[in-house]
């Protein structure tokens, strides 16, 4: 379980927090909010890339900002927004770097590459791939680093992926959650967030506007307040509901 307690981070006049929220093991938690609401900054603070001026981030009682880098790498894996496509390493080497401090377990790397369809690209340099292929390679690196109980922190993982690989990625994340891990994922697409995530953290201007189950947080009134735009739930033929901009054709 990932717990943020009173997390506050200030940079260049932008104030993030204080954030008090929990991402439970066995669930997918989506971080949503308008542009410049602090989603990426929050994920970087959570993953130990940036140190908060106040508060703590803990994974199962382990403080992410005071523990060793090895211990942090063992309990949390992060993929940032727009990882470099100009990386000269081969796909195989990039994915294996996920195990750099965790011991050589080629099985994890092979499984990650297999799950994201990278076997045939394993000897290619990442900088020779398309943006979507490179994204899958970086995603596989993060997945290869994760174990059954680890926290996966992903910033817009499906943004450059086509429909097939976006679906595959969500299935992969659901599998990780079902195996006992936690997933924290920043995403712009509210409909997908509401559909795929169990819980949602809603940010606005660096503040946590709401945190809870997806159906609770993705409430049209709250979304109107955060985004300045109207949303509504639409019924689909299979009986499920889908979040859409108000007035859009269904």
């Amino acid at each position, binding site marked *: 379980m990932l717990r943020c307690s009173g997390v506050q981070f200030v940079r260049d006049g932008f104030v993030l927090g204080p954030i008090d929220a929990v991402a439970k093991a066995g669930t997918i938690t989506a971080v949503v909010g308008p542009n410049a609401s602090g989603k990426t900054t929050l994920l*970087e603070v959570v*993953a*130990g*890339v940036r140190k908060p001026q106040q508060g703590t981030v803990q994974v199962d009682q382990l403080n992410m900002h005071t523990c060793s*880098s*090895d211990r*942090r*790498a*063992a309990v*949390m*894996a*992060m*993929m*940032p927004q727009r*990882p*470099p*496509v*100009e*990386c*000269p*390493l*081969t796909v195989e*080497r*990039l994915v294996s*770097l*996920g195990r*750099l*401090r*965790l011991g050589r377990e080629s099985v994890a790397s092979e499984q990650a590459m297999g799950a994201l369809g990278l076997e045939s690209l394993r000897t*290619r*340099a990442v*900088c*020779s*791939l*398309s943006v979507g*292929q490179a994204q899958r390679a*970086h995603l596989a*690196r*993060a997945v290869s*680093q994760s174990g059954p109980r680890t926290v996966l*922190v992903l910033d817009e993982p499906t943004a450059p992926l086509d429909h097939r690989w976006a679906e595959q990625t969500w299935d992969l994340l659901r599998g990780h959650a079902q195996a006992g891990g936690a997933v924290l994922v920043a995403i712009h697409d509210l409909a997908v967030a509401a559909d795929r995530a169990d819980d949602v953290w809603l940010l606005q201007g660096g503040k946590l506007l709401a945190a809870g189950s997806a159906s609770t947080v993705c409430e049209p009134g709250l979304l109107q307040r955060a985004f300045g735009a109207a949303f509504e739930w639409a019924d689909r033929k299979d009986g499920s509901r889908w979040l859409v901009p108000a007035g859009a054709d269904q």
Partner: protein
Amino acid sequence: MLLLVAAAIVAILRMTIDRNPSSGSISLAWPQAEWRSFRVTATVVGLLVGGGLALAGTLLQASLRNPLASPSVLGVSSGAGFGVMLALFLAYQTGVTEVAWGLPAMLGAAVAVGLVLVLGRKDGWPDPVSTILAGVIIATMFGAGMVLLQGLVPDGLRGRFLAWALGTVPEVTSTGAIPVLAGVLGVVCLAGILGHGRLDALLLDHASAVSIGASPGGTRLACLVAAGTLTAMTVAVCGPLGFVGLVAPHCARLLVGPEHRFLVPAAVLAGAALVTGADTLRQVIDLGTGRLPVGVLTTLAGGPFFLWMLRRGSASAWRGGMHASV
């Protein structure tokens, strides 16, 4: 390795050119006994300096995630060179006859690295484009400083300045220069091979490198210190040899790929072969008179290589044209 051994043997040999216009052939012979130690010293220095500059370039390219980074492009060579020239100038002004070149070279290199890091930073991390731009400006400024100092010293010292400033592999070195350079090169090379995973991790973005536990900040700082030290030591011995630190790592990358467990030793060998080969070529071109600085050859060869890489863009530069783009 075979290329390196061949280059070393040829470098030790004495070159003679048949001046008969009808044949114009080049012949090789062992130098006379009294000259042999000079050629052996020059060859050993060439091997160590070439290896050191290549390793410095490899570390800079990894730590700055920039395939165009090298000691000369980033102004580290010029900074070290300026440090030496300033020390010589101050020694001349104060009447001191003997000056140790190592320390002023190190200080100059440290100032250049520091300036590049500060001016090339964007959002807290070294930015590839800003870093190169800052390096070019710093190299130009230190170069201008060297020219200024040349104008302030008497003719005799100016000639020594000029020969050194263009890069020359010496046939006589100060006591201890070779063992110290060999020792530092060996330690940094071994550290690079043992820490190849952390060097590979530097090729990721900062957040990913932190995520996998690679401590990129510390690794990057260690790389910059090691590269600055190696550059300063080579500049103190040979003067600035342009573009060796850029060309050699890319030649090695073409042969063994980008992983540092192979790249680090391969780049050292490539740099050693490059400088030794260039010094051998110098012997042929200047007909053994010793008037042509080897740095002129490395710059003439490396300059176009740099422009070619700049034109190809960094992604192509990293992969050296080995793979087609999608």
